[in-house]
């Protein structure tokens, strides 16, 4: 810590600091000053109370006093907006193209070209014996049987496994993908969709051929277009547009020389696309950007190192969808959801409960310092949240340090280095602010009565111990004899945390 005496910051600077609106360099200067100046710490305390007063007035008085929302809000006339925003020349060009399309294809949607009806007919078509499919994705292509017995993911070559995983994630039947039934099941699962049936050009005297096209705005698989055989209406080709890739399946001539099982034609896919630490970093950044908070997440490479696997536990469906949306655009990522395990019982043994009335007396002491029971409760809520947040930020920094040591980041692109730096910065700064908040609050609430126990633990251990002790102290689960050493230890840990967070923050700044 700088031993130079620091001038008292102005009220505006204190406000900017308190509101986390100040740049990190100046924040550190103010934080150092506040650590040493009780007068200014009290000023910040008063400002915080004033801001909290307004926030509760805003929610409890001002907003309820406004006239109630309309019973039925008008819908947004977006369709009108679309029409309004088309340039006249664009409409003319679209009309011309439409006419040309009609002329070229003798386009005429027959009355019977109904999606459901065509699918029903297509489902009755017999599956040709030994039918095989040519699969094309990116620069890879291979031949596979049209119908697979349950394939084992792990037994497949990587490129095929990748496509298989895409279909599984999209809940589309990979065992028999080029079938009307699989298409119908996927289509029925969509909450919003747009269907289009196109009549393809045919030779005079031949039956019509159809293309069924369904698009959706959500999910992994955004559109599927199946082309039906004019004779029996079985699907003969399909275009599957996933968020990240386009996959084409087409009926292939049966080849006697092919073994019955999966036969890669071009598996330069053997040059497997492995997931890299940079992929992993992008996952961390995306999760952070999506504020995927309050969730337990495992982020790790799978055993084959082809995917970054994100495992989430105990997450509601809506939140899971948000996380899925945040990860959709990233390559080589797979999201898994697990039901949560029973919460660990971390409660203290009964011997730690307030058997001798120590907690009641201590709470009264704290209430007197805080200015009343309501004020104390506000401080307790704020500090427990700050402690929990500090714990998380410290853990995040530990994970980043563990996953991306210099030996790994040496290989990173400039962009990845910047991303990592941003992430560390975000967590470092948050940790610094939380540590300071704890220090300021506890200085007023728990003035040292004993010599603080000097802590010598690392960042993770410090935040874990502090969080555990604070929870015990503020929940009143301690006995009279435990109180003095607990206070001394908390004071020591808070001081240590402030020093560590200032060091971390300073190092990241450099």
């Amino acid at each position, binding site marked *: 810590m700088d031993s130079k005496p620091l001038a008292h910051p102005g009220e*505006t600077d204190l*406000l*900017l600091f308190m509101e*986390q*609106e100040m740049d990190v360099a100046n924040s550190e200067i103010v934080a150092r000053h506040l650590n040493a100046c009780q007068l200014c710490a009290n000023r910040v305390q*008063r*400002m915080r*109370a*004033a*801001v909290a*007063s*307004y*926030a*509760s*007035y805003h*929610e*409890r*008085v*001002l*907003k*309820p*006093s*406004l006239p109630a*929302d*309309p019973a039925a*809000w*008008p819908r*947004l*006339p*977006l369709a009108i*907006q*679309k029409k309004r*925003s088309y340039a006249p020349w664009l409409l003319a060009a679209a009309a011309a193209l439409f006419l040309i399309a009609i002329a070229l294809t003798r386009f005429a949607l027959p009355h019977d070209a109904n999606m459901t009806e065509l699918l029903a007919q297509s489902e009755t078509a017999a599956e040709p014996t030994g039918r095989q499919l040519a699969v094309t994705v990116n620069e890879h292509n291979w031949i596979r049987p049209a119908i697979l017995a349950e394939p084992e993911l792990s037994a497949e070559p990587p490129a095929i496994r990748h496509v298989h995983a895409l279909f599984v994630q999209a809940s589309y039947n990979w065992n028999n993908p080029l079938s009307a039934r699989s298409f119908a099941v996927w289509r029925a699962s969509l909450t919003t969709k747009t269907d289009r049936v196109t009549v393809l050009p045919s030779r005079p005297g031949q039956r019509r051929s159809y293309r069924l096209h369904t698009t959706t*705005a*959500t999910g992994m698989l955004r559109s599927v277009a199946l082309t039906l055989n004019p004779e029996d209406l079985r699907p003969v080709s399909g275009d599957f547009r996933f*968020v990240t890739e386009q996959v084409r399946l087409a009926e292939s001539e049966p080849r006697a020389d092919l073994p019955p099982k999966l036969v890669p034609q071009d598996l330069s896919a053997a040059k497997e696309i492995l997931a890299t630490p940079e992929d992993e970093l992008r996952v961390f950044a995306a*999760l*952070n*950007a*999506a*504020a995927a*908070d*309050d*969730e337990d997440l*495992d*982020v*790790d490479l799978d055993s084959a190192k082809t995917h970054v696997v994100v495992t989430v536990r105990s997450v509601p469906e809506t939140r899971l969808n948000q996380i899925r*949306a945040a990860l959709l*655009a990233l390559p080589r990522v797979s999201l898994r959801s697990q039901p949560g395990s029973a919460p660990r019982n971390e409660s203290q043994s009964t011997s730690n409960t307030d058997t001798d009335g120590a907690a009641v007396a201590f709470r009264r002491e704290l209430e007197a310092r805080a200015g009343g029971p*309501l004020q104390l409760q506000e401080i307790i809520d704020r500090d427990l*949240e700050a402690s929990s*947040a500090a714990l*998380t930020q410290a*853990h*995040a920094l530990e*994970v980043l340090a563990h996953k991306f040591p210099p030996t790994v980041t040496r290989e990173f692109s400039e962009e990845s280095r910047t991303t990592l730096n*941003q992430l560390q910065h*975000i*967590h470092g700064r*948050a940790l610094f602010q939380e540590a300071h908040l704890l220090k300021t609050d506890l200085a007023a609430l728990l003035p040292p009565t004993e010599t603080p126990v000097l802590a010598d633990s690392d960042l993770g251990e410090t935040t874990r111990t502090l969080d555990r002790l604070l929870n015990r102290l503020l929940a009143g689960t301690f006995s009279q004899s435990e109180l003095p050493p607990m206070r001394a230890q908390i004071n020591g840990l808070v001081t240590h945390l402030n020093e560590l967070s200032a060091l971390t923050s300073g190092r990241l700044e450099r």
Partner: protein
Amino acid sequence: MVFSFIDRRRRFRLATDTFAILERMTLDEEVERLYEDTRAAIRAYLLCLGISTSQAPELTQETFLRLYQTMRKGETIENVRAWLFRVAHNLGVAARAKEWHFSGPEPDWERMKLPAGSPEQMLIERERLANVQAAILQLSPQQKNCLYLRAEGLRYREIAGVLGISISAVGEFLRRAVEKLGERDHG
């Protein structure tokens, strides 16, 4: 290894997050979702600018239509919520011509939302909020406006964008407001 992201204040998001997620959804759906999520907040703000109860929903709708047009052009919006407040502010000010000023509603104490507690605690809380109200009456319209937008979760930079003033002016308005609120709290 378990990695928990608990950034409860959500203050440290990467700058691009809002729009990056938006890009992945269809525009119509996204604007409709935003309309459902945010229209009440925008209407409340317009009412505080003195827009009538009958006109506020219209201007709210116009705000979202402008959002739709802007996003259709592919323009990047860093923080959609702040952008909506800015457009609503401009529409509100234009609608009131020179008569606009941020006032907020007359408090209706009957509709006040108090936390559960003993009658005594509720009385104390009500008294505390009445003190805050008395302090707010002494604030200038700009100070009230800044406090309001801050309580809606906007950063200083964003408040400055909404009101068309500098960031330092926002800091100054808020400092004075906080000072007056603090005097009342401790006076």
